[in-house]
């Protein structure tokens, strides 16, 4: 477990609504440097929106997002670019750019934002691909030529390519078979450990949550209704958490049929 110092990320009363439907309803959360937090919650509970609000991809309506003690909710221009430079993100569907080869995907930030030249960028990309268990023969392929698991690995390599301080993982194991999911979990653990990065992962996959989390938080109806250490998860004493982690249809959580 990391030592508790100044939190790396602090969310206070974070609110976001789409039309008249509230998605985030006052999220309060803090993440310590080097900590791996897993946020669990049902589909449509606002997990992805929370990550996107932290990154500024979705503009929050109210509240506060502090990164390293600096308020980032309304910063723009160069300050936002500098803030984003510290982040890496693995998207649910990998979100690889299909018009460029794998190595250019991995080295994208290095080349476009940091001005690293082609040969050097390719060498770094191949090194990062090796870190996620992919050989250099993959570097010149296009994303469409890869399997889902390989695309996730490439996406992970892209997320860590610029050595970020903070990494977000948006449902990293969704759509993968259990073995590949475990491989991805191992890679996430290893990459986060090697970089000493702070990580927030959102997932439905409890095996994944158990493996990669230091701490777990549950988001329900736009609020953090429980958080605690990984060890506390299985006996949280919270009926919502119990229902979710055991995947029971019966319980206080009623399935939301319509997507908001």
């Amino acid at each position, binding site marked *: 477990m990391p030592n508790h110092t100044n939190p790396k990320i602090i969310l206070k009363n974070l609110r976001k609504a789409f039309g008249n439907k509230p998605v985030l309803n006052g999220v309060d959360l803090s993440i310590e440097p080097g900590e791996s937090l897993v946020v669990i919650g049902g589909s449509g509970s606002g997990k992805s929106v929370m990550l*996107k609000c932290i*990154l*500024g*991809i979705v503009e929050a309506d109210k509240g506060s997002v502090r990164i390293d003690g600096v308020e980032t909710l309304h910063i723009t221009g160069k300050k936002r*670019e500098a803030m*984003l*430079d510290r*982040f*890496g*993100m693995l*998207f*649910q*569907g990998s*979100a*690889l*750019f*299909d018009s460029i080869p794998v190595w250019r995907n991995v080295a*994208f*930030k290095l080349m*476009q*934002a940091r001005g690293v030249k082609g040969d050097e960028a390719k060498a770094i990309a191949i090194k990062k691909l090796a870190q996620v268990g992919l050989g250099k023969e993959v570097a010149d392929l296009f994303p469409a030529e890869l399997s889902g698991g390989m695309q996730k690995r490439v996406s992970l390599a*892209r997320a860590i390519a610029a050595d970020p301080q903070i990494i*977000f993982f948006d449902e990293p194991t969704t759509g993968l078979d259990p073995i590949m999911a475990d491989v991805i979990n191992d890679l996430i653990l290893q990459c986060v450990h090697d970089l000493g990065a702070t990580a927030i992962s959102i997932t439905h996959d409890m095996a994944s949550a158990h493996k990669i989390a230091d701490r777990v938080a549950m988001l329900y109806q736009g609020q953090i209704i429980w958080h605690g250490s990984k060890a506390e998860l299985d006996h949280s004493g919270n009926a919502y958490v119990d229902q979710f982690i055991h995947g029971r249809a019966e319980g206080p959580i009623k399935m939301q049929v319509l997507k908001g």
Partner: protein
Amino acid sequence: MPASSSFVANPLLQPFLRLCQQVGRALLGFLQGLGQFSFFVLRAFSHCLRPPFYFGQWLRQFWDIGYYCLPVVGLTALFSGMVLALQSYSGFSRFSAESVIATVVALSITRELGPVMAGLMVAGRIGASIAAELGTMRVTEQIDALTTLSTNPYKYLVAPRVVAGVLLLPVLVFIADIIGIFGGFVVSVYKLNFNAATYIDQTWYYLEVMDVVSGLVKASVFGFIVTLMGCYFGFHSKGGAQGVGAATTHAVVASSILILISNYFLTGLFFSK
């Protein structure tokens, strides 16, 4: 009960109030869309002028618009010029004015048909392609990924396309003008038995620089419209395949309508006395 509550609760007024609600909602939706579009145009425009410039992306868009549209625009211009010569001959021969065919072809092509036909063809070829590409990038979170990779999507995706459209459509139209006039020449000389030298003389004699320049300025405006509409609808597409399809359709329809409307006002600006 307060007077206002009893007024709202009056059952006779319910259909009227529902109608007001629907009109109000539609009006608010329209104003919101207009605001979103205006904001998009301003951001796109500002990012075209401010560094960093992604020249690799600019070159790719120059290639896509210039190279891939040339055959379509060229063929359209060629057959437009040929049909124009045939139709003009058929019409003007009724009052023995066949000698003006060369002038009619040249003026029609350079002032109107060249830019408008090229604009519409590019809207179908490139506007649709931009909307589909950006729409797919939006629904697969590739545009969000760009942001997390410290790359501004307006600079990387929108600015190169808009700049390429504004700069390259005039080039395409200039080539289309030459091909269209050549089409009229071929039909007039080889089918209608005009004298080649006289036809060329007639074309040069009445054609003014302003005729060509006005067409090129129109082309630049149309290039802006086509690429901007493609980017706007692609950028704001939602859902999955259906959303991308809808974005593509909206981009082509909106571009085509705006080309025809703006053509009227530009013609008025250049040629009304």
